[in-house]
């Protein structure tokens, strides 16, 4: 099986967000960057599918700055075979431009499966996988939390409000992976050593500007100072009164 996994380098979710001097971006100084957690499910799934098939290739593709080589190495250490860095200093604010760059790269090879994480935890976009599928004319299932593949047929499950959708689709396809699909492995020392020698191709790209422009990045409005109503069950009466009379939610 020939599988492409598209990954992203993102700030760790514990990062303290400091806004850069331009007022439009994250101040990256001192920020720890990691492989997007949802992409870990994608890498893991690709590795398992290749292992089950007994043959094939898992290629990792990442749009990002030079430092994203490190992120690709993490996926290689988990067991992916090779990496491609689509190198650009900035990731476009318009996800359609990101999708175009990734689709152009994917288009050069024929894949059985193309995987993305369901969401990037930095910009909270959930669309790049779907946009790429549309650009490539491939079927797409998003937020997959369970997957069965047999030959060129797939059955996926995805969580919706109040239930689970069971979806049939043909391969090749683009899938975006959700929590629950698998338990991603940690790179072992042997994998980390091996990853250093795996091929990592760097291709400079110039994404378009697109139609979305960042106007400002600001801290969220402070929630108004909360109050401790009291201690223990004795405070419940006052809590209910406040919820009714002050917050007016009861």
């Amino acid at each position: 099986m020939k599988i492409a996994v598209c990954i992203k380098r993102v700030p760790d979710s514990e990062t303290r967000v400091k806004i850069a001097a331009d007022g439009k971006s994250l101040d990256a100084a001192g920020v720890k960057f990691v492989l997007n957690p949802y992409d870990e499910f994608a890498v893991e799934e690709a590795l398992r599918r290749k292992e089950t098939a007994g043959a094939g290739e898992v290629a990792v593709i990442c749009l990002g700055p030079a430092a994203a080589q490190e992120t690709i190495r993490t996926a290689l250490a988990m067991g992916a075979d090779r990496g491609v860095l689509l190198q650009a200093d900035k990731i476009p604010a318009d996800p359609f431009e990101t999708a175009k760059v990734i689709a152009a790269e994917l288009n050069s090879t024929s894949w059985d499966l193309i995987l993305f994480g369901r969401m990037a935890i930095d910009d909270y976009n959930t669309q790049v996988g779907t946009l790429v599928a549309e650009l490539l004319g491939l079927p797409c299932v998003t937020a997959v939390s369970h997957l069965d593949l047999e030959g060129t047929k797939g059955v996926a499950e995805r969580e919706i409000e109040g239930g689970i959708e069971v979806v049939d689709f043909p391969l090749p396809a683009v899938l975006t992976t959700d929590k629950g699909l698998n338990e991603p492995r940690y790179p072992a020392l042997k994998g980390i050593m091996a990853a250093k020698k795996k091929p990592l191709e760097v291709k400079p790209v110039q994404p378009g500007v697109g139609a979305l422009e960042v106007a400002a990045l600001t801290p969220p409005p402070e929630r108004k100072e909360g109050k401790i109503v009291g201690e223990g069950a004795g405070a419940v009466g006052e809590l209910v009164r406040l919820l009714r009379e002050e917050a007016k939610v009861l």
Partner: protein
Amino acid sequence: MTTLAVLEQRDGTLRKISHEVVTAAQRLGGAVEAVVCATGPVQGADQLGKFGADKVVTLTNPAFARYAPEACAQALAERAKQGGYRTIVFGATATGKDLAPRVAAQLGVGVAEDLTDLAADGGGLVVTRPVYAGKALLKVKVAAQPAVVSLRPNVFTPVERPKAGTAETVAVNVAAGRVTVREIKAAPAGTLDVAEAQIIISGGRGLKEPANFKVLEELARAFGGQAAVGASRAVVDAGWRAHADQVGQTGKTVSPSLYIAVGISGAIQHLAGMRTSKVIVAINKDKDAPIFKVADYGVVGDLFEIVPKLTEEIRKLHG
């Protein structure tokens, strides 16, 4: 200029997000055309004039019995191309997140996703979306024509602005699609999804063991069917609760009217999923727990004493 508001239905009944989508579309000024893909008449669609829809269009095809991603996308993209709409508004629900980028790509644009605010700005739009786990807000100018956006559920409170809306039903021809929903495994009857509930009572490790969630379920029941029980990542990872109930970065993002966090310390991943809730109550034995920093009201102490007392008080109110 007209805004196209994309509604959502399941089994022939309009979903709640539809009112929010129409309400937000109405804010942009100009006419609002609401559109829904269905097999026939949709229950509740005739009420949308109440929320400001000038016209409700039902696109019908037998393929729309269940969510048909490719067929719906085709039908909506074709409608969008004909109509010359300035903005197309979706709800950022499980379905909307899947559908919006398909339609957008066919129109040659990206989606401004998961918005908590939007406003017209000259010929374009200015939108706000939470990023970095809710620790920052990104303000984005959308120059795309049309602008395709999706709204965070439960943020845009439906407002009644009655209009004498018209209705139209159009049978559409669409390709069957390669991706098909075979079935929907529904959650047990009577369980409300956390993503849709107006009141959420979430539990964390402070509950001590899975069986103790019954104290939260009793409280939820006391609210008379408007409340859902959510969970922190820790207890989902421990297998105490289903992932469908998880609130937070690797779970659901919720914005209920009332969020009650019980025995949850308030890790950043959890706050990412609930900080846009309107009113937050925290019940925790540790007075220094970070959850108290985002809570409007806090009660410090033993949840096994506090929650049953609260259940009793709520029952009295709903008596």
